[in-house]
């Protein structure tokens, strides 16, 4: 068996790959923003025991955590295109669909990994010592102020290790974008395979690219964790 990587020198394939990497990174970053918004908001509602909203959050978490992300993506994609919301392009005057494949992938990543993030952040909040909270309460901090100034800053730090896995999971799950025709790195790879039939070589490259992206993400998170480390606390 010989490996043939000559296709890598084709400028067209290089463009597809680079654009694909860019799209994968953009999908992941936007998905992460949504994941954090959902994760923090959901964990706050559960932790502060907000009446009437606790059950909806719990149902949301169970629904999105316990079903395959691919099913969720297809459901979102077909449901939202069925609703058929459109925007009017200000330049051409044409109708463009509001929920493109790209939007659906970002939403799907944010919802799936966001549901997991809710539980991760909630467990971080539960790890904040009751004494620390009592200290804040004795100084006149309200429930909400205690959450904002004491529980959340400590709880988020405690949730960094499991959140790192969730971020890596989100980056990997973004490869589903290819299935709703979004030109991410998997999409580029699929196109190159169709033209060159060098399936093994292309997949080897894709494997390495995902490894590099995820490793960089882990390194960045480690830098953030180090910057926010609490001296003398925990390990």
């Amino acid at each position, binding site marked *: 068996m010989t490996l043939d990587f000559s296709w890598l020198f084709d400028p067209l394939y290089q463009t597809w790959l680079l654009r694909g990497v860019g799209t994968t990174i953009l999908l992941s970053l936007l998905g992460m923003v949504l994941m954090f918004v959902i994760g923090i908001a959901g964990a706050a509602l559960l932790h502060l025991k907000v009446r009437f909203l606790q059950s909806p959050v719990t149902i949301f978490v169970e629904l999105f955590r316990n079903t395959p992300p691919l099913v969720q993506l297809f459901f979102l994609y077909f449901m939202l295109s069925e609703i058929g919301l459109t925007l009017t392009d200000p330049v051409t005057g044409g109708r463009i669909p509001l929920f493109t494949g790209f939007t659906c992938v970002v939403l799907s990543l944010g919802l799936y990994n966001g549901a997991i993030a809710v539980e991760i952040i909630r467990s971080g909040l539960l790890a904040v010592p009751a004494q*620390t909270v009592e200290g804040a309460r004795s*100084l006149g901090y309200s429930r909400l102020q205690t959450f904002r100034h004491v529980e959340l800053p400590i709880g988020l730090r405690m949730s960094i290790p499991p959140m790192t896995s969730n971020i890596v999971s989100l980056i990997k799950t973004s490869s589903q974008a290819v299935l709703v025709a979004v030109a991410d790195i998997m999409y580029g790879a699929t196109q190159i395979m169709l033209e060159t039939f060098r399936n093994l070589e292309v997949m080897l490259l894709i494997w390495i690219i995902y490894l590099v992206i995820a490793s960089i993400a882990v390194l960045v998170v480690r830098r953030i964790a180090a910057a926010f480390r609490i001296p*003398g*606390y925990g390990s």
Partner: protein
Amino acid sequence: MTHHRHSQQSAPLIEIRDVHKSFGPVTVLRGVSLSVRDGGVVCIIGPSGSGKSTILRCINGLMSIDRGTIRVGPFAVETLKSDKALVPLRHQVAMVFQQYNLFPHRTVLQNLTMAPVQVLGENPAAVRERALALLAKVRLTGKQDAYPGELSGGQQQRVAIARALAMQPKVILFDEVTAALDPEMVSEVLNVIRDLAREGMTCVLVTHEMRFAQEVADEVFFTDRGVIVEHGPPGTLFQNPTDPRLKAFLEKVL
């Protein structure tokens, strides 16, 4: 003489009457009454589980009561329900805990300045200046940028006392503040409390340090099974106890 001797005749600053408190099926307080005058130093002693710490937590509204009244200065504590209503009370009643309860993610200086700025809305520059003076008072000058986790237990407890003082309270509640400390660190914390008591700060201490209670308190309350069994000036209470439960307790701890 010290300030608190002068104000001996004034109306009590804290007045607790017939307070009952249960946690589910467990009754912790069964009709506790006690009063503390402005500038007074009161110690509450008694066996574990007798309700000492619960009394303190009821005074600053950390725990609600089932029956009875608690008055602290102008506040009827049992009527204060919302967080907002409790702020003025907690401004006047500060608390120091057995486990220090500091904010681990903030520096020593920030631990002192956070609540006055974020809760009381005071000017940050003025609070900072006051905080630095308080750190000097508890002999921790130079530690302002350290984090609580980098300090010894005795140092952390002195930060906690300074944090309480930064609120400029009328009363400080001390909940077994030396119980978690190594023996050699106990005296450095007690020295700070002794200074405060001498300066006329109203102090309510739950403590197992009987010799310290004897030295600083004007009045000592002995609790057992949710009631105050006996109280009086430390000389009388420690030297001539009348209740058999107090006698038995003192035999064990002295």
